[in-house]
């Protein structure tokens, strides 16, 4: 067993060895290193062919047309291109955008930038289970709303938003609908021939592909227009200039192909491990799962161990690589904005750990994790004044704390 045990698959995944092998064929003189835009020789043609295959693989996973796939440097760039590109193109129609408070920073910060440029943005509250209330969304839609951006699967708590219904609401009002699908592609079914989604962001490195490559789905029917954010040689039909990185794209394509083939197997494997982990920790008093229990992907498992501070827990869980909802490591001392948006108390928000399980996680690893979690919680609660007060029957919300 390799230590620390990697349980941070929502942050990034290792490249699948099958993918790495294909990528390595596109780098050296012996391989397909050519520029796919070179039309005058075989090096270029061969590279172009590999790009086409990769584009097909990506389109097939989400049931789209390959001509609807635009390569970018990753989901952050895809989100930027989708949101800024659509907002700018349709700004004559209106300057109102709707998103949710639990979105990834790549969406929230892009919206903030648009606010600085004169757009108005509504940041929707979510329900305590992390899902967007469709009535609240509908009520926020206005005549001048041009864009709605809602993520498919949340990166911190793993809940799945109902993008099918949200798409219907948007389409009925001719509002462009963008979905950040960085955490959902390859983990839950996406059928873009059915979904009323206009723009969808993808990342390769969340599903065993390389970092530094992603894609944006841009619907052809109805045709969605965007203002390019990167100008140059007019690659990707003018949506995104820049020489295509063949090895990265081949890696992404292969990762998406494998994701489609193995989705059922991966999901079963991960679901079983998640259940095993929960079996092993659920008896711990004052332990809560964050996010809706039904609408979720199995790989992201966010748990609050009340009265234990997240950063010290991570320090105790030294045999595993996990992440904490408590951002105490930054100077801000703010707990996760996603957990706060669910309405968690300060203690609970500061006490959360995200375990994200993936293709290469084993039962043996989960069993080791269970043991260390149990020991660490006991040790830290023994040290926690909040736990002592809780055990003495004191209601912490009645105490006047001296904030510092």
């Amino acid at each position: 067993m390799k230590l620390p045990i990697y349980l941070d698959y929502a942050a990034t995944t290792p490249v699948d060895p099958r993918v790495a092998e294909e990528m390595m064929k596109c780098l050296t003189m012996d391989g397909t290193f050519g520029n796919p835009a070179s039309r005058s020789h075989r090096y270029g043609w061969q590279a172009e062919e590999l790009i086409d295959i990769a584009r097909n693989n990506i389109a097939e996973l989400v049931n789209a047309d390959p001509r609807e796939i635009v390569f970018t440097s990753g989901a952050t760039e895809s989100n930027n291109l989708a949101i800024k590109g659509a907002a700018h193109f349709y700004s004559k129609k209106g300057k109102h955008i709707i998103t949710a408070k639990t979105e990834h920073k790549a969406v929230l910060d892009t919206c903030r930038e648009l606010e600085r440029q004169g757009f108005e943005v509504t940041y929707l509250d979510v329900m305590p289970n992390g899902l967007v209330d469709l009535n609240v969304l509908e009520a926020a839609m206005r005549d001048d709303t041009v864009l709605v951006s809602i993520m498919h699967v949340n990166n911190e708590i793993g809940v799945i938003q109902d993008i099918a219904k949200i798409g219907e609401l948007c389409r009925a009002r001719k509002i462009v609908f963008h979905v950040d699908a960085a955490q959902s592609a390859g983990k839950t079914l996406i059928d873009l021939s059915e979904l009323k989604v206009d723009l969808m962001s993808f990342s390769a490195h969340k599903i065993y592909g390389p970092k530094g490559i992603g894609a944006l789905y841009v619907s052809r029917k109805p045709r969605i227009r965007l203002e390019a954010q990167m100008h140059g040689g007019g690659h990707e039909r003018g949506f995104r200039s820049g020489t295509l990185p063949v090895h990265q794209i081949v890696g992404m394509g292969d990762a998406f192909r494998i994701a489609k083939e193995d989705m059922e197997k991966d999901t079963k494997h991960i679901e079983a491990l998640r259940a095993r982990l929960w079996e092993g920790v659920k008896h711990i008093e004052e332990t809560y799962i964050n996010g809706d229990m039904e609408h979720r992907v199995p790989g992201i498992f966010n748990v609050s161990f009340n009265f234990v501070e997240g950063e010290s827990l991570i320090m105790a869980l030294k045999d595993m690589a996990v992440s904490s909802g408590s951002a105490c490591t930054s100077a801000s001392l703010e707990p996760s904005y996603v957990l706060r948006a669910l309405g968690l108390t300060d203690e609970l928000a500061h006490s959360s750990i995200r375990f994200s399980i993936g293709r290469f996680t084993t039962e043996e690893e989960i069993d080791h994790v269970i043991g260390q979690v149990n020991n660490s919680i006991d040790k830290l609660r023994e040290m926690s004044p909040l736990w002592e007060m809780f055990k003495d029957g004191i209601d912490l919300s009645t105490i006047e704390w001296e904030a510092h």
Partner: protein
Amino acid sequence: MAYSEKVIDHYENPRNVGSFDKNDPTIATGMVGAPACGDVMKLQLKISESGIIEDAKFKTYGCGSAIASSSLVTEWVKGKSIEEAQKLSNTEIAEELALPPVKIHCSILAEDAIKAAIEDYKSKK
């Protein structure tokens, strides 16, 4: 973030974890911080009639540096008079534990905990 060896040592082998009866007249209790900030420290001192700190215990909810700061303080104050304890500053704590800038507030909290406990002692008299 990488922690210093001293922080890890105090975190893994915390000194003087526990509680005294806060209603005991010889026990002074200081509780500082707030769950909203991610740190709550409770420091208790057992003070003799002549004003010497005979024993100290702590409980802390917070990051590794907060736990280490409070653990260190319980060691330092033992055997000191109240006046001496009051002079302990956060910079000494931060220096001893080699706390990085983002963790300086942990040492400030530990200093505040001593002061709060001494206040409690004075108010009990």
